[in-house]
Structure formats: structure tokens, C-alpha cells
């Protein structure tokens, strides 16, 4: 088996299980995002992979070789830290050369590798600069270059882009993904930003309370969340309690025709872009408009159907003709609904 | 290099040497001093092992009581004056540019590190009749003829404030420089004048620091041993001077040790008060 394999990993801090019985396979060359709210155990999991924490139980192996007893400094992984952790007493070039220097590589090799890496991250010629003189984005790139210096088997990043402003973050997401594809390196990124996870990864692993909730390709996870937690965390979702009524489902304010429920009471998830706002006569659900957010590229409408909040997102072309206080109709196609058994999630 | 409890014997090596040094050359001397405080003095400046409370019994004299009260009042006065000067000074200092701050800090450290001997000598010169300030005042016509201001209580107080002032500022400095400037700005936007904002926001926020500093400087002043001798008369001698005097000139080590133990207990209880205050304030 080539790639990283986690087998029933658990990490306890006292009585609390930060990571609880996690098994995961990351095939060679893939880009995986560990996604979840803060405190879900994703960083602890990453740190165990890096060797910075010891699992309480379970095995970690890479390419079939067990890793548990290998200390962090012998794993040959590259890691980018949330704080970036650039050495303040070393220049940019010295930072990047550090892993080569402590391995005793000749200085000519160090210099040429540093040059190569700086070109790779689009910062040629700044070897002599002090790390304190760099901008946030430059520091980011230097940290990435340093982590890649010894061509690691595994590239780990802990919230690497969280310190950057929104625009730069988007640009770096693209760049990071391109870099990973160019090098074909197995990469694991920890993030709490679902847009970041959606835009970069081959696979997303959603975690909550130390457990894996779902692992899937981004678009599959978006379309078919395994439970209400995933539906809500990855993008926006209308989570509605529904009751079976023959071939239809009864929801607050009306019904969803053609959605047959196996269980009499279920919870369904509908993406806001699948909720169509129409006239009271045409919709199958009646709701009152409570609030409209016009964000230019899209319009978000918050509605109240029998005390339950619905959110609809429409494109400017399909701008619905409604104002705050109007009673309108909603139509939700049955095929856009994901049904969870009640009680779960 | 993960932060973990020591496991193997070798993990303890780094702490062994400091523990040994401090144990042998600080704890043991302290214990010997404690033992001597219960010993008996014999003629010729020596002492012999005994277990007597007689040395502590001597505290119950009027003379000792006066010295103790004088020491405490003097230390409190010095601490109060230092805070009165030091609080506004430190506040202004932290508002200066980084460069100006460094200049002042170097100057303060320079004065702080000055030997008590040098401070005492300098002030005794400055307050003397031949070389002192009074000459200056005569020159500009404020006084008819030069006068000696030392020895005297004013000279002792001035010297001690001079010595303790840099210390006060350096104790206050961290809290003041970490004080969030937006607190002042917020109170200004809420209608407080700078002076009012200082009294209603800065001082209350730093109340615990101020109390702690008062006590720390108080202990510092309580330790003064040379300035009262150089700048004062015998009635201005403090407990520390008395200890030195008994130990060196009267050769009464047991009594000196008993006084030192008493001074430690007094200082330590004050330190514990500070620690308790700080712990209470840690939640802030």
C-alpha cells in the first residue's frame, strides 16, 4: 500500500479524547483537507502524523512502514505551521537551507536548492532578506519553500493561510494546489475554512468531536452530505424536519411533492440555491420574507415558514419579485433533498 | 524536544548543579544564621551553641521598638514618594518614542546599579556646605550663606528616594507599557479629560500593580543600610543598619542574626501578600 495509513488512532488528553478512533487512508499524490470546527481534533491528528504528539492507541504507517516509533525529526516530512514558525535569527535563505544544513549537505548544493525553491514559490533572489522584512504572503511562501526543501514524502500544513487577508488567501489556495499538482506530493492541510477545503482538495475529511464524519470528494460531499453536521458545515444548508405523507413530505409551511420518506419523521437538507422563490400560488410551501441580502453576484433571501427559517439563494438574473414582509411560495425539487434519518446528526 | 516531565536520571542533570549551589550557598547559610539567632554570645565577640530566645527577647526594648517603627515609617514614606513621582513618570515614559524610552531606561539602570556608597557620597557632597546646592542658592541670591543639609532626616529621605526611584519605575514599567492605549482613547471619546481619564481609568486598572509596587519598594527601602549611616544621625538608623552594626562593630552575631530573621519574616509576609494579590489579579 503506498501512501499514508492511519489505523484506529485515538489521542486522549486526560479524560478527553481529542481524536477518537480515526482510520484514514491517504493515497500517494493526493491532496486531502482535514476540515472541522476548532477543537474537532484535526490539528491533533496532523500533529500525530508529523510525530509531534504520540497517539494513545492506533497505528500510523507510510508506504506500509509503521511510523509510531519514529521521532518527528526522522520522519522526513515537511510541515508548515499556523504561525509559520520561521526562524527569526536566520535570513530567508538560511531558513530554507536549514533542513539541508543540519543534514550536512555541501553549501553549494544548499545554495542551488534554495534558489530553485525560491523560484518555485515565485520569490526569486530574496535569499539575503531578513524574515522580519517580509510581507505576510512572502512569509507564507518562504515557509512552504522551507518545508519542501528535502522533497518530503508528506507535506503537512496546519491552517497555513489563516493569517492572510481574503484576497491573498484565495490566490494562495490556487497556487498551493498548482504547486502540489506540479510536484505530485502527498499533502494534508488542516483548515476550518470550508471554501478553502472545497477549492483545493481531492478529498475532504470532515471531523467533529474527534471523529471523522465523512470523507469524500468535495463535490460529492457537497451534494451528498452524510449527516446534518456535514451538510451544515460544508456550505450553507436548510435543515428541516419533515414528516411522511403518502408520496410527499410535509414540511413547515407546506409540502415537498414527490419526496417519499422511508421513516415517518426525518430530517432533510436542502442547499439554498435549490430553494426557488416564486409566487404564493405556484409554490408548495408558503413563507414570509424576513430579510434580503443582495450581494451583487447572488441574492440571499431569509424566509419564515411556520416559524422555521428557510434560506434561498437566487442569481441576479432570476431575481424574485418580493419585498420584506411579502408572503411568497417556495418550491423545492425532491431530487435536491438529502434525507437523514431522524435523530441522527 | 517536546516539553515533557523528566524521565531518565540524565534529564535531571541540568537542575542538579543550580539546586546544589543554591542549597549550599544560600539555604545552608540561611539555616546557620537561623541557628546562630538562638545561640549565646560569649565574651570576646564569639558565640556558643545554645537554645535561647534571649536574642529575640531583646526586641522588647523601647530602643528596638523605636528603631523598628522608624524603619517602617521611613520605608513607607520612601515608597509613597517614589510612587507619587514614579507613576506619572512611568506613564509619560511609556508614551515616549522607543528611542527616548531606551535613553531613559539606560539612565535609570545606570542610577539603579550605582553603589549605595556612591549615592551616599554623592548626596552628602551635594547637600554639604562646601560643595552643595546651598552654594548655588547663595549664588542666585535665595540664601544668605551656605548651609549643611546633611546629616539629617531630609537627606536620608532624599537619598533613599533617589536610590529607590529607578527601581520603582522599572517595577511599574511592564504594566504601564502593556496598558491598552485604547482604554484611554475610549474614555476620552466618552467625555473624560486626559487627567480625568488617567485617574478614572489608568489608575483603577493598575490598582493591583500599584499596591504590589508599593510593597516591593517598601521592602527595598527597608533593606537600606548605608544611606542612613552616611546621610543621617544615629537616630535615623534603620533595622538594617542596626544588624550591620551588631554583626560587625559590636560583634554580637546572635543578636544580629535574630534581627535578620525578624526582617526576613517581615519581608516574606509582605512578599506573600503581593503574591496573593497577584494571584487574585491573574484572572483579569
Amino acid at each position: 500500500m503506498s501512501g499514508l495509513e492511519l489505523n484506529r488512532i485515538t489521542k486522549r488528553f486526560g479524560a478527553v479524547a481529542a481524536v477518537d478512533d480515526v482510520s484514514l487512508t491517504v493515497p500517494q499524490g493526493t491532496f486531502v483537507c482535514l476540515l472541522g470546527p476548532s477543537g474537532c481534533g484535526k490539528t491533533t491528528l496532523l500533529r500525530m502524523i508529523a510525530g509531534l504528539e504520540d497517539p494513545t492507541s492506533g497505528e500510523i504507517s507510510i508506504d506500509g512502514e509503521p511510523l509510531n516509533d519514529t521521532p518527528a525529526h526522522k520522519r522526513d516530512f515537511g510541515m508548515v505551521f499556523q504561525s509559520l514558525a520561521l526562524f527569526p535569527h536566520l535570513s530567508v535563505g538560511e531558513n530554507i537551507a536549514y533542513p539541508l544544513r543540519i543534514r550536512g549537505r555541501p553549501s553549494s548544493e544548499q545554495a542551488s536548492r534554495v534558489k530553485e525553491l525560491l523560484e518555485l514559490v515565485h520569490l526569486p533572489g530574496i535569499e539575503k532578506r531578513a524574515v522580519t522584512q517580509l510581507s505576510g504572503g512572502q512569509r507564507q511562501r518562504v515557509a512552504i519553500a522551507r518545508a519542501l526543501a528535502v522533497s518530503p514524502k508528506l507535506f503537512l500544513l496546519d491552517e497555513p493561510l489563516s493569517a492572510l487577508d481574503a484576497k491573498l488567501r484565495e490566490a494562495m489556495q490556487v497556487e498551493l494546489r498548482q504547486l502540489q499538482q506540479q510536484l505530485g506530493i502527498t499533502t494534508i492541510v488542516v483548515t476550518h475554512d470550508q471554501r478553502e477545503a472545497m477549492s483545493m482538495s481531492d478529498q475532504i475529511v470532515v471531523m467533529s468531536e474527534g471523529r471523522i464524519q465523512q470523507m469524500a470528494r468535495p463535490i460529492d460531499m457537497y451534494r451528498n452530505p452524510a449527516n446534518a453536521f456535514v451538510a451544515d458545515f460544508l456550505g450553507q444548508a436548510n435543515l428541516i424536519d419533515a414528516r411522511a405523507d403518502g408520496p410527499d413530505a410535509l414540511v413547515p409551511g407546506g409540502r415537498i411533492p414527490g419526496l417519499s420518506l422511508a421513516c415517518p419523521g426525518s430530517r432533510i437538507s436542502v442547499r439554498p440555491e435549490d430553494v426557488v422563490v416564486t409566487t404564493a400560488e405556484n409554490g408548495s410551501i408558503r413563507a414570509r420574507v424576513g430579510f434580503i441580502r443582495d450581494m451583487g453576484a447572488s441574492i440571499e433571501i431569509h424566509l419564515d415558514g411556520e416559524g422555521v427559517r428557510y434560506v434561498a439563494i437566487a442569481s441576479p438574473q432570476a431575481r424574485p419579485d418580493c419585498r420584506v414582509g411579502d408572503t411568497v411560495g417556495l418550491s423545492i425539487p425532491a431530487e435536491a433533498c438529502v434525507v437523514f434519518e431522524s435523530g441522527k446528526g | 524536544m517536546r516539553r515533557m516531565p523528566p524521565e531518565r536520571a540524565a534529564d535531571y542533570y541540568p537542575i542538579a548543579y543550580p539546586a546544589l549551589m543554591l542549597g549550599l550557598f544560600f539555604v545552608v547559610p540561611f539555616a546557620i544564621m537561623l541557628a546562630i539567632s538562638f545561640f549565646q554570645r560569649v565574651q570576646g565577640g564569639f558565640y556558643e551553641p545554645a537554645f535561647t530566645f534571649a536574642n529575640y527577647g531583646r526586641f522588647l526594648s523601647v530602643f528596638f521598638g523605636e528603631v523598628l517603627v522608624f524603619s517602617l515609617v521611613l520605608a513607607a514614606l520612601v515608597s509613597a514618594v517614589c510612587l507619587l513621582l514614579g507613576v506619572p513618570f512611568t506613564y509619560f515614559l511609556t508614551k515616549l518614542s522607543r528611542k527616548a524610552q531606551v535613553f531613559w531606561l539606560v539612565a535609570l539602570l545606570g542610577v539603579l546599579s550605582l553603589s549605595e556608597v556612591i549615592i551616599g557620597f554623592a548626596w552628602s557632597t551635594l547637600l554639604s556646605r562646601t560643595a552643595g546646592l546651598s552654594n548655588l542658592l547663595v549664588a542666585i541670591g535665595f540664601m544668605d550663606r551656605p548651609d549643611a543639609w546633611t546629616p539629617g532626616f531630609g537627606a536620608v529621605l532624599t537619598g533613599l528616594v533617589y536610590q529607590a526611584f529607578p527601581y520603582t519605575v522599572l517595577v511599574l514599567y511592564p504594566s504601564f507599557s502593556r496598558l491598552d492605549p485604547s482604554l484611554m482613547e475610549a474614555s476620552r471619546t466618552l467625555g473624560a479629560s486626559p487627567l480625568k481619564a488617567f485617574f478614572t481609568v489608568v489608575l483603577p486598572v493598575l490598582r493591583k500593580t500599584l499596591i504590589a509596587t508599593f510593597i516591593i519598594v517598601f521592602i527595598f527601602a527597608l533593606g537600606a543600610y548605608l544611606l542612613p549611616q552616611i546621610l543621617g544621625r544615629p537616630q535615623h538608623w534603620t533595622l538594617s543598619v542596626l544588624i550591620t552594626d551588631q554583626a560587625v562593630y559590636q560583634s554580637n552575631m546572635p543578636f544580629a542574626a535574630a534581627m535578620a530573621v525578624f526582617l526576613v519574616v517581615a519581608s516574606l509576609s509582605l512578599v506573600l501578600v503581593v503574591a496573593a494579590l497577584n494571584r487574585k489579579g491573574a484572572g483579569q
Partner: protein
Amino acid sequence: MSAHWPKRLFLSALAVFLALPIIVIAGVALNEKKTLAFPPEGFSLGWYAQVFTDEGWRAALVHSVLVATAAAAISVSIAVPIAWFLWRRVAPWARIVEVLGLAPFILPPVITALGALSFWATTGFYGQPWTVVISHGIFFVSLPLVTVTLGFATIDREIIEAGMTMGADDRTLLKTVVFPLVRPYIISGFAFAFVLSLNEYIVAYMTVGFTLETIPIKIFNALRYGYTPTMASVSVFFVLVAVVVFGLVARFGDLPKLLGAWSEGDKG
């Protein structure tokens, strides 16, 4: 904004207060004759030269510098392992050692002095020149202890972890990351201990007061038994040493941060 002059006046008055004694002793050292008059009568740099030419003063100066250098080295050698151990290990009991290191400086100095006197007298080494080196070394542990502890506290744990993931073992990390980062704090700690030991009187007096003359002891003796302007010139010389040393600390390190302020970067 309100007028700045009250603030300026206040700061200037304090500056004068702090500088005045030093100006006066610098002045009296310029007297032509052996008198402590101010303003000086006549002009002579002879008293300044005396610090180095007079055998007694020169010897005292050499003693002071030797004692201070050795004592500061001892202080640093005790303080660094404590700070290192507390940073490196989870060992709450080791705080006791830290408190022992800080105690001599918090307690009135006469106590440490009397303790030292009792100890050296009991062990029979009283009066040996090296006893003051050890007693000073213990007395000033707190200074490097405070600065070096601060130095370790400024090392971001993630930096150490980054080094680990890049392949550095403990020894390599110590050499290439930890030590370079705390070195300025060790040097400042040494500087503080050195300057304070130079100026220390009572511990020196109670350990070697009758056998070894350091500068403070010699000045004090001169105060008792006969004033000479050399006292003034040597005091000025000591002030200069202190200012130069702390100036160097400020030049090569972040002095405000060393004294507990946030560093410039932290302010954002």
C-alpha cells in the same frame, strides 16, 4: 491637544534630580587641590588619572572587576540551567529552585550578607578572597534568571517543532535554534550581574571587608577615614561603566522588551 509643558517640566525636573549628584561628583573630582569644593577650585584631571595610577585605587579596581566578572559568570552558570530546565521539562517542583534563585534579590541584602558571613565564618573560610565571588554569584542569580527565563519564553514552541519536522534532533536544535535565540538574554543577564556586583557593598564587606578592598569598600573607607577627590572620580568612572554596559545591551538587544514591555512587533 493640551499643552505639553507640565509634562516636559516634570520630566526635566526628574532628569535634573537624577543627574545632579553625578554632575556634582564629576565636578568635585576636577578640583586642583585635595578638596571637595563645588564649583571646583582650579582645574585638574589628576584625580581622574589617580584611579589608574594610584596603587591602592588601581588594586581596588582590579579586585572589583575580577570579582564582578567571576561572580557574573557563576550567576549565569546557575541561572541558565534553571531557566532551561523549566522551559524544557514539565516539573512544577523545580519552581522551588527558581524561587531560591530569586529570593536573595527580593529580600533585604543585609540578610544575604549576614547569611554569607555566618556561613564563611562557620566553615572557616571567612576572609578568603574567593568567598565574595561565590556569595556575589549567588546573590545576583536572579538577574540572569529573569532575563534568560524571558528569553526562553520568547521562543515560540512551533519554531522548535518546525525544526523537529525538518530533521533536527535535540542537540542540533539546541545548537542551531535555542541557543542563538537566548544568547542575547544570557549576555544581558551577565551584564546586569556584572554591573551590580561591581557596585555591591554589603555582601562584599561582610565576607572580605577586612582582607580585600573592592571599589565600594574603598570609597566607604575613604568616607570614614579621609575624603579624597579620587572617590569622586572613581564614582564617575563607575557611572560611565554602567551607562556604557546598559547602552551596549540596548544597542544589541531590545531593552524595553528585556524590561518587560511588549516588543515593537507585538504592538502590531
